[in-house]
C-alpha cells in the first residue's frame, strides 16, 4: 500500500528543500533507515515552452518539438523535492550525493504533450560509504508510459538494512565491473570536444531546472558544504552529453550515467565518445583524462 501526494502543478523547489533540510535539524537518524511508500504525482501537466527553450539553450540542445529525456527528468525534480520534504523521509537532502542516473525514453514526447508525472523512492541498499536509494520517476502521455528514470542517491554515513531490496539498483555505481566502467568494453571513447564551463553555469542551470542546491550556486555557498568552488549539476553534464550526441541518438533509448567526480566551476573538460552496434559509450574527462562522468546510450 502507498499513500499519494498529488499536486495540481509542479511545486516550487526551494521551499521544499528548505523544509526537507529543516525536518532533519536536531533529529538523530534512525539506526536503520526506511523509505516512505509515498507516490508524488502531477496529472495533466502542461510543459512551458519558454522554460524548455531556456533549458535547451543552457544544455546545448536545439529547440525541437520532441523534448530531450533529461528535460523530463527536470520535470520530475520538484516531485523528488516534495518526497524529500515529507515528514517520514529518512535522509536530509544536504548530504545526498547523486551518484548515477538511468533513464529510458519509451516513446518520443512532444512539447505540446500533457504529462502525468510521478515519483517514488525505492531500492534502499547498503553501500561502502552509507546507504544508496533510488528516486524513480515515470512520465505518461495518456495511459502510455513515455519515460522512466531512476536517480541513485548516496546518503553518506547512513545505514540500510542488510539484505535490503536492491532489485532496482542501476548497478553502475555498485559494480566496478559494470560495462560502463569496464576497460574491456570495446573501443575506448575518443576525445572529440572541449567544453568551457563558465563560473555562472550552476546559476544558469538552477534557473532552468529549479535545482537550487547551494553547492551549485556560488563558491561561497559551495564552501559551506566542503567544496572548493561551486560544482556544476550532474544533470547538466548528463544533458550536455546527450546534446553532444544529438543526431546520433535513436528515437527511443536507454541512457545510463555514473557521476564519478564533481566538476568545479569555472572549468574546462573534454568530451569523448565511442560508437558501436550496441550504442554509444561516452565520458566527460578532466585533467589527466580522469572521468567526471561515464555513460552509455543503449539502442
Amino acid at each position, binding site marked *: 500500500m502507498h499513500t499519494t501526494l498529488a499536486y495540481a502543478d509542479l511545486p516550487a523547489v526551494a521551499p521544499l528543500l528548505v523544509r526537507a533540510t529543516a525536518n532533519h535539524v536536531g533529529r538523530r537518524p534512525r539506526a536503520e533507515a526506511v523509505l516512505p511508500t509515498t507516490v508524488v504525482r502531477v496529472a495533466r501537466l502542461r510543459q512551458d515552452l519558454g522554460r524548455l527553450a531556456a533549458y535547451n539553450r543552457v544544455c546545448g540542445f536545439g529547440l525541437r518539438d520532441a523534448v530531450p529525456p533529461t528535460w523530463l527528468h527536470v520535470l520530475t525534480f520538484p516531485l523528488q523535492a516534495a518526497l524529500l520534504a515529507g515528514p517520514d523521509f529518512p535522509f536530509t537532502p544536504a548530504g545526498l550525493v547523486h551518484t548515477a542516473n538511468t533513464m529510458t525514453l519509451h516513446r518520443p514526447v512532444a512539447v505540446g504533450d500533457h504529462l502525468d508525472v510521478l515519483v517514488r523512492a525505492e531500492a534502499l541498499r547498503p553501500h561502502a560509504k552509507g546507504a544508496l536509494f533510488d528516486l524513480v520517476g515515470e512520465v505518461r502521455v495518456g495511459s502510455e508510459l513515455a519515460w522512466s528514470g531512476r536517480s541513485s542517491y548516496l546518503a553518506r554515513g547512513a545505514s540500510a538494512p542488510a539484505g535490503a531490496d536492491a532489485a532496482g539498483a542501476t548497478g553502475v555505481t555498485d559494480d566496478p565491473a559494470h560495462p560502463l566502467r569496464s576497460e574491456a568494453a570495446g573501443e575506448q*571513447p*575518443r*576525445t*572529440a*570536444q*572541449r*567544453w*568551457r564551463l563558465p563560473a*555562472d553555469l550552476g546559476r544558469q542551470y538552477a534557473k532552468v531546472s529549479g535545482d537550487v542546491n547551494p553547492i551549485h550556486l556560488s563558491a561561497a555557498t559551495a564552501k559551506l558544504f566542503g567544496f572548493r568552488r561551486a560544482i556544476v549539476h550532474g544533470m547538466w553534464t548528463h544533458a550536455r552529453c546527450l546534446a*553532444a*550526441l544529438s*543526431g*546520433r541518438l535513436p528515437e527511443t533509448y536507454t541512457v545510463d550515467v555514473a557521476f564519478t567526480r564533481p566538476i568545479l566551476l569555472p572549468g574546462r573538460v573534454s568530451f*569523448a*565518445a*565511442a*560508437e558501436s552496434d550496441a550504442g*554509444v559509450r561516452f565520458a566527460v574527462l578532466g585533467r589527466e583524462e580522469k572521468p567526471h562522468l561515464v555513460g552509455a546510450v543503449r539502442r
Partner: protein
Amino acid sequence: MPERSAVVVGGNRIPFAKAGTKYAAASSGDMLTAALDGLVARFGLAGQQVGEVAAGAVLKHTRDFNLTREAVLGSALDPHTPACDLQQACGTGLETVIYVANKIRLGQADTGIAGGVDSASDAPIVVSEGLRRALLRASRSKTLLERLKSFASLHPTDLAPVPPGVVEPRTGLSMGESQALTTAEYGLTREAADELALASHRNLARAWDAGFFDDLVTPYLGVTRDTLLRPDTSAEALAKLKPVFGGENGTMTAGNSTALTDGAAVVLLAEEEWARERHWPVLARVVDAQVAATDYVTGNEGLLIAGARAIPVLLERNGLTLADFDLVEIHEAFASTVLATLAQLEADGHGTVDRARLNVNGSSLAAGHPFAATGGRIVATLAKLLAERGPGSRGLISICAAGGQAVTAILEAV
C-alpha cells in the same frame, strides 16, 4: 545545345597581408572591390556586364549581407552585373568557382567571376548572448517598464564585446586543437611538417622572383608581395619554434600553421568557345568537383581531412588515379593537414602524391590564408601552371573547411 565547357581565363588577387598590419584599415568590401577592379583592368572589363559575380567571406558583418553585389557596384563593372554571396567556410573561394562554372556549363551564363575575401583585422565584434537577448526582449516590449525589465537580468560580463567565434560550434575546439588530435592520431612528425612549411616558403619565393604572379596580383595599399612570405627561412629557424597546438610535445608551431591573414582573390571564368571568339586566354577547363564531409563531432574522423573522402569520389567518377595529375594543390591549413590527408589517401589504397608535384608554387603556409580568398588564389595559380605545361595537363585541388568539409576540383589545360 552543344556541350559547353567552363574555363579559367585568368585571376587576380591583392597581395595577402598578415592580419592587423597593412590592411588593418580596409574592410572586406574594400579588399574584394580592389581585387575585382584589378581583374577588370587586366581583362578590359570596365563598363562591361559579366554574367554573374559570386564571392563570399567567412568573417562577415551583418551589414555585408550583400558583400559581393556591393563590391560590384563599387567596381568598374557595368552596374547591371548581378552578384551573390556564397559561404562554405574556407572552401568558399573554390565553391564559388564551381558555382560559376556550373552556370556557364548549363548555359545560364557565358562569363562569370568567382572569388572571396576575408579580413581577420576588421572582423565583426558582436554583443554577448545575454545582452543580445535583452535587447531583443526590449524591442518587443510595449511599455517603458517592460523595456527596463528586459535589462534586469543582465550581468556585468554581458556588456563585454564578443569577438568572432574561432572554434567549431559542436566541439568547442579551435582548428588548431582539432588538427592536433588528427596529427597525434596519424603520428605525424615535427620534421615532416617543418619540411612541408619550408618547401611552401621556398616555392612561393621562387615563383615571386620569377615573376609568376605579375599577371595574377595587383598591389594594394602599397603592398606588392605577400607579407607572410619568409624567403630566407630555414629548417633550423622553423625547428626553433615552440609548439602552439597539441601541448608541450606537440608538433604544430606558428611556422607550420597558417597565420590569420587579410586578402582577396577573384577568378574570371568563361564558356570556352565564348572566350576563344574574343581571344581571351583559355588557361584550364573546370572538369569536375566534389564536396565531402567527415564525421568529426564524436571524434570518429579528423576535422580537416575530408579531402581524403572527396578525392576518391572525384577520381572514380573521372576514371583517374592520383598518378594522372601533373600538379596537386592541397590547401595548407596546417602542414599536418596536408600530411594527414595524404596519409589517409595512401591508407585507402590511392597511392602517394609525388612531392615535386605538390603545391609547386607554394601554398597557404607561405602566402597566408584569408579564408574565403584561398580558393581563388589556388585556382588562378593552378590554371596558369597547367596552361604553361600545355594542353592535357591535369591538376587536382583540395581545400579543407570548417564543419569537417572539403571542396575538391579537377582542372585541365586546354
